[in-house]
């Protein structure tokens, strides 16, 4: 039973071990993060000065599209699935995921999806150029021929996410150690359980919308074609019915990660555990009824604008509950600021800024001004970069000693944090101002009046990019270092994962751990 892994490449190809698969997901997502980052730097380099300098406008559009797609579906989502693979079984005292073979499949189809998507860059007519939101008819009537490959890539990503979600639910529902009741589960497990249900509800809708595009393009249907009695606006409704829950798919697990980290470094248990669970569920539920806040300007009756406006503002309430609880957890705690904590505290502050710009955008009449400007770009980068990305980074620093058995270098970790923190704010904060003064998003050239903000943003972007290279270096150096971590790693952290030796053995909890 207690055999180790197979050797060489076969270990990774055939593995059904949750830790191996978690590792694969995390490395894959990091590779996609770098690829998406390169696309972003092409965008920022072109925008360094007004006028066309480096790339053709057509290629610029391909870059914005590919950047969004790769970051959302290649970097953020797989990273959280990787964390879930590693941590969910360890946190609930399970020997592995419930469906280990399916687990192998759900990872290994992903590289194919992204190889296919990336190959469109070399095709006639270029890669998809219609934005990550691929609105019809831009993505149907006017799409480059490579759109078909885009569609199939999205199908594969969707299948992977759905399989991953089913696996996570089955694991949490069926493999909890005796005594681990639902309300005793760590919050990361809770947030992932809810996220998995969101995935099962909306990834099929994404698959459906690209399938309808496929039929419109190749088989003469008219779902989104006005000439045949369809309606392009319907595309936006269906897309955002997927799209808004999708943004919460990218943030709920992040809530779970920081809810694990902040109590450890504040040396207090999490404030308001059950309200955290209910707030997460409320956010997930509300996320289905706010989608049209992305479409305030398409032409809706007043009643519709108002309904979606108030529903959207309502989401800020459970979100506020969470922020309150994190702050209350830190309040009067004996806080220390190791790297995971730095990333988590930055998460709380900067995510809240993103939440506030979200509230501004939720005001329908104001959104007529902000819509499709850099203000929106600033908003969603504030919730996604110091939100999703920082929480993943925090999680990696927090659990890496448990994974590989070595302690990372704290000084290098802090250098990474501060370069990322400064880089990110220098990149994205000026976008608020560029947006408020009217700079449209997704354009390769712009008016002189936006030149200063853009130059600053570009400098910040390269700094942020450099920080990620440092991250890569830190992780590799930690894995190869000879500084063994203790089993507890931190100062009396809560959770079953810390009862295991460091590094965590290949097979863990083959017998359920005793729980009080």
């Amino acid at each position, binding site marked *: 039973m207690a055999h180790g892994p197979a050797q060489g490449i076969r270990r990774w190809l055939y593995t059904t071990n949750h830790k191996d698969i978690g590792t694969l997901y995390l490395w894959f997502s990091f590779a996609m993060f770098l690829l998406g980052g390169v696309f972003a730097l092409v965008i920022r380099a072109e925008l360094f000065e007004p006028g066309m300098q480096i790339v053709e406008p057509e290629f610029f559009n391909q870059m914005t599209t590919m950047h969004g797609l790769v970051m959302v579906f290649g970097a953020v989502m797989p990273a959280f699935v990787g964390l879930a693979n590693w941590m969910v079984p360890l946190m609930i005292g399970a020997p592995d995921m419930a469906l280990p073979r399916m687990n192998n499949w759900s990872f290994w189809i992903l590289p194919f999806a992204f190889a296919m998507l990336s190959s469109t860059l070399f095709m006639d007519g270029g890669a998809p150029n219609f934005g990550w939101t691929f609105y019809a008819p831009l993505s149907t009537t006017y799409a480059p021929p490579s759109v078909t490959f885009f569609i199939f890539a999205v199908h594969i990503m969707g299948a992977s996410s759905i399989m991953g979600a089913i696996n996570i639910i089955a694991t949490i529902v069926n493999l909890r150690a005796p005594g681990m009741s639902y309300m005793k589960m760590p919050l990361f497990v809770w947030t992932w359980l809810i996220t998995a249900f969101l995935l099962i509800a909306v990834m099929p809708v994404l698959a459906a919308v690209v*399938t309808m595009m496929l039929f419109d393009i190749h088989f003469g249907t008219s779902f989104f074609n006005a000439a045949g009695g369809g309606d392009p606006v319907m595309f936006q409704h269906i897309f955002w019915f997927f799209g808004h829950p999708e943004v919460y798919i990218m943030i709920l697990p992040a809530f779970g990660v920081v809810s694990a980290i902040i109590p450890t470094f504040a040396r207090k248990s999490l404030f308001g555990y059950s309200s955290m669970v209910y707030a997460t569920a409320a956010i997930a539920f509300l996320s289905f009824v706010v989608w049209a806040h992305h479409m305030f300007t398409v032409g809706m009756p007043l009643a519709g604008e108002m309904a979606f406006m108030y529903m959207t503002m309502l989401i800020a309430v459970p979100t506020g509950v969470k922020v309150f609880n994190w702050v209350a957890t830190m309040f009067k705690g004996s806080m220390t600021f190791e790297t995971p904590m730095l990333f988590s505290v930055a998460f709380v502050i900067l995510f809240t800024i993103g939440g506030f710009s979200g509230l501004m955008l939720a005001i329908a009449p104001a959104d007529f001004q902000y819509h499709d400007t850099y203000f929106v770009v600033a908003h969603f980068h504030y919730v996604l970069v110091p939100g999703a990305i920082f929480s993943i980074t925090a999680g990696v620093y927090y659990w890496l000693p448990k994974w590989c058995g070595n302690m990372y270098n704290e000084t290098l970790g802090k250098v990474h944090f501060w370069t990322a923190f400064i880089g990110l704010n220098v990149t994205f904060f000026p976008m608020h101002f560029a947006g408020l003064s009217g700079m449209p998003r997704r354009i390769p050239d712009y008016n002189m009046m936006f030149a200063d903000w853009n130059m600053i943003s570009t400098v910040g972007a390269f700094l942020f990019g450099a920080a990620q290279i440092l991250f890569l270096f830190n992780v590799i150096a930690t894995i190869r270092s000879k500084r063994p971590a203790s089993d507890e790693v931190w100062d009396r952290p809560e959770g079953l994962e810390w009862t295991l030796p460091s590094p965590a053995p290949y097979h863990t909890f083959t017998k359920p751990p005793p729980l009080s």
Partner: protein
Amino acid sequence: MSLSANSTKTLVLKLLAGALLMFGFAVFVMPPIYDLFCEITGLNGKTGERYQALPAAIDTSRQIKVQFIATNNETMPWVFKPSQQQIYVHPGEEVEVRYFAHNPTGRDMVAQAIPSVVPFKAAEYFHKTECFCFNSQALKAGQSADMALRFIVDPDVAKTVNTITLSYTLFDITAVTEG
């Protein structure tokens, strides 16, 4: 062990069924619901199908201005225009107007006109008893046509509506009809 394996299986099947259901919901339920919703509310300005004229009282106390707009979709080369820019009608009265279309190209073409009405709240009160938009229009190279539109503005239309704008966009569907 086998008990938990069984319950895992049923759970997985349920979740899979849920995913398939959502796919079906998006493809087969959402579009009809969307159309129905638009039809009921008049959103997106789409007008209804052919209307069976019912004998109704003509409300001579009101006059409504009806404006006609014709637009060619992107590269559509036809000449397409209403024979008059606007007319005044009484609610309940059936009126006929004509649109002119000419195919100036050297090839036979098929077109489809898609109507849209503003204000949205008037859309469901704008009844067409006869319209060239109910069918596609085929014109041979160089041919012209006068196309009829008969409509009634429902007497129940909101009192605040004084002007209704009817816009047609003409799409080239030659490729689709040949294919």
